[in-house]
């Protein structure tokens, strides 16, 4: 069985592998949605359909020993960083075989072998935590970096302001990556935020910042590489705003009906899968037939996986009493 680290390492310098992982995420999210609808998943889910280029750009640019503090919108970043569909789905279904033993659920994934810190379900909480991880790297004089992945809506919470200011004044090796998918729950970002380009908030901390096309993995890699290089070389933090779009609803059964007519369709024209497929085909790295069969196989695999995971063991009662205090 391949480990998370192996799955992660397979992505480097391999655009085809990254594309396959994007397809995996897309189909995984669709199946998760179906499982939730049929009642096989309790609680909630937060899908990242349409944002696959962003998570893969992160996973194929950061090194496995760098760390990521992400959010409840966790499946995609988890799979991208290397967690297996089995360990993620098992966690979402509360199985003992899940990456958190089934006690975490959809909002809380964790796998330290690929640098995924426990994802937080509190808006902004991961921002100072990532700064703190970077502080440790600075003190330990390693060349690791930390990355905080958060949404557009999170730029209005106090922890964002305090975390960025602290990282700037201490020149910490951390990247603040804002996934601007246009919505915070059911609110369009312009309803809650008086500026359009969120990355300019970095000016308040004299921090370098940029915006990039979150639908294009190359653009994500390029911008991220620049920020990582700065962080590793002692240049301090960067705020990156990735312009993306949440193709699915916010969570659970949300259909996203509050979105203006045609907005989704506009963005779907730049579906990261399409963008990547065009690129790969033009570089003769893949054919349409391969793409079709790849997707078919992925659906088949994940459908089989879902059946298999459904039969995985539930956690023992003792799991509820473990890992609380030493």
């Amino acid at each position, binding site marked *: 069985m391949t480990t998370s680290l192996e799955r992660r390492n397979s992505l480097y310098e391999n655009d085809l592998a990254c594309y396959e992982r994007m397809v995996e995420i897309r189909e995984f999210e669709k199946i998760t949605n179906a499982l939730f609808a049929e009642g096989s998943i*309790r*609680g*909630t889910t937060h899908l990242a359909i349409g944002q696959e280029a962003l998570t893969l750009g992160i996973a194929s640019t950061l090194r496995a020993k760098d760390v990521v503090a992400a959010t409840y919108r966790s499946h995609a970043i988890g799979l991208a960083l290397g967690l297996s569909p089995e360990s993620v789905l098992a966690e979402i279904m*509360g*199985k003992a075989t899940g990456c*958190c033993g*089934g*006690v*975490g*659920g*959809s*909002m*809380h994934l964790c796998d330290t072998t690929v640098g995924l810190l426990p994802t*937080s*379900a*509190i*808006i*902004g909480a991961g921002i100072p935590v990532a700064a703190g991880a970077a502080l440790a790297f600075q003190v330990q004089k390693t060349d690791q970096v930390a990355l905080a992945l958060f949404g557009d*809506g*999170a730029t*209005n*919470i*106090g*922890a964002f302001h305090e975390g960025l200011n602290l990282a700037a004044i201490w020149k910490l090796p951390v990247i603040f990556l804002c996934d601007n998918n246009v919505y*915070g*729950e*059911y*609110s369009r970002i312009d*309803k*809650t*935020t008086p500026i359009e380009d969120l990355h300019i908030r970095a000016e308040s901390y004299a921090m370098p910042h940029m915006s990039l096309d979150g639908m294009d993995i190359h653009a994500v890699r390029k911008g991220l590489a620049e920020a990582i290089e700065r962080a590793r070389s002692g240049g301090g933090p960067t705020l990156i705003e990735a312009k993306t779009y949440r193709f699915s609803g916010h969570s659970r059964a949300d259909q996203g009906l*509050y979105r203006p007519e045609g907005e989704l369709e506009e963005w779907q024209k730049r579906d990261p899968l399409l963008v990547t497929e065009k690129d790969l085909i033009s570089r003769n790295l893949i054919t349409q037939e391969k793409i079709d069969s790849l997707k078919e196989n992925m659906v088949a695999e994940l459908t089989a996986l879902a059946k298999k995971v459904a039969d995985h063991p*539930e*956690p023992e*009662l*003792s*799991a*509820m*009493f473990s890992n*609380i205090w030493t």
Partner: protein
Amino acid sequence: MAAMRFRQAVVAALADEMRSDSRVIFFGEDVAEAEGPFKTSEGILEEFGPIRVRDTPISEMGFTGAAVGAAMMGLRPVIEIMFIEFLGVALDQVVTEAAKTRYLSQGSLSVPMTIRASVGSGLGFGCQHSQTLEHWFASTPGLKVVMPSNAQSAYSLLRAAIQDPDPVIVLEPRILYAERGEVDKNIVTHIGKAHLRVTGNDITIVALGQMVNVAEAAIKKSGTSADLVDLQTIIPWDREAVLNSVKKTGRLIVVEEAPLSGGWGSEIIAFVTSQLFSQLKSPPFRITTPDVPVPFNGGLEGRYAPTIEDVTRQILYALEKNDVPQPWWVLEGLTR
């Protein structure tokens, strides 16, 4: 009398207060256009408009503080905190600002604000979205905290909270939002007053929120004659009602959706013991959750809060043995 869901009773109470008092405004995250993540503000924006009903940015400290300021200026703000855990980024405004305003202004200012927050376990939201956290508001003179247990108290307590001149926190058991119940709009509930849900003679059971329903079922199941005191207000709790019941029964059990360590029930037990020591026929005790984070897995979460079966077992043990039963996790050897 009308049958409605708990969440509809919340909407009805808010709407009735907004109709009868133009000082009442309402805001929170996605409460206006989306009508609330739990649909607890259906039709509110439509009826009362965007001046009085607003969506906020994701800024609990900001909009909770704004409610404090607006209340000082004479409005009656009602805000929604989607999950009680989110007050962890805004507690200062509630306990250090709002609760101290009347005192520091020598009564020239008050903070008639209402904070509604969904609480509790049972729906698979995980360890950061499933706690009740009443204790965050304890030891804070100036605050009041209530928790409804059905549609009727959801309606009556919210109206009382909005009418109250002090800051009131309404903790709504999320798992009850979909529950149906009869609501009589004429029933007026006073903050600080408990409700005797069941009356009997052999034992007094004190509960709050969703545990009231669990305790009621357990009383039936165990076939005992018990007083079931639905506390309704946790701060300040109805000492008189509890003392009167225990004077009658001589026995006390508190059923809590709160951990063994730090749960609110200890105060009930300690106070009653100090006051009625000689009248107690058997040791009072608490039925609580174990000292663990709320687990996600359905099977585990199903054991987290006291269950009908376990409460039944403990009631029967107490009455038969006149002694204190072990919690299930000790019996099953899971922890001390």
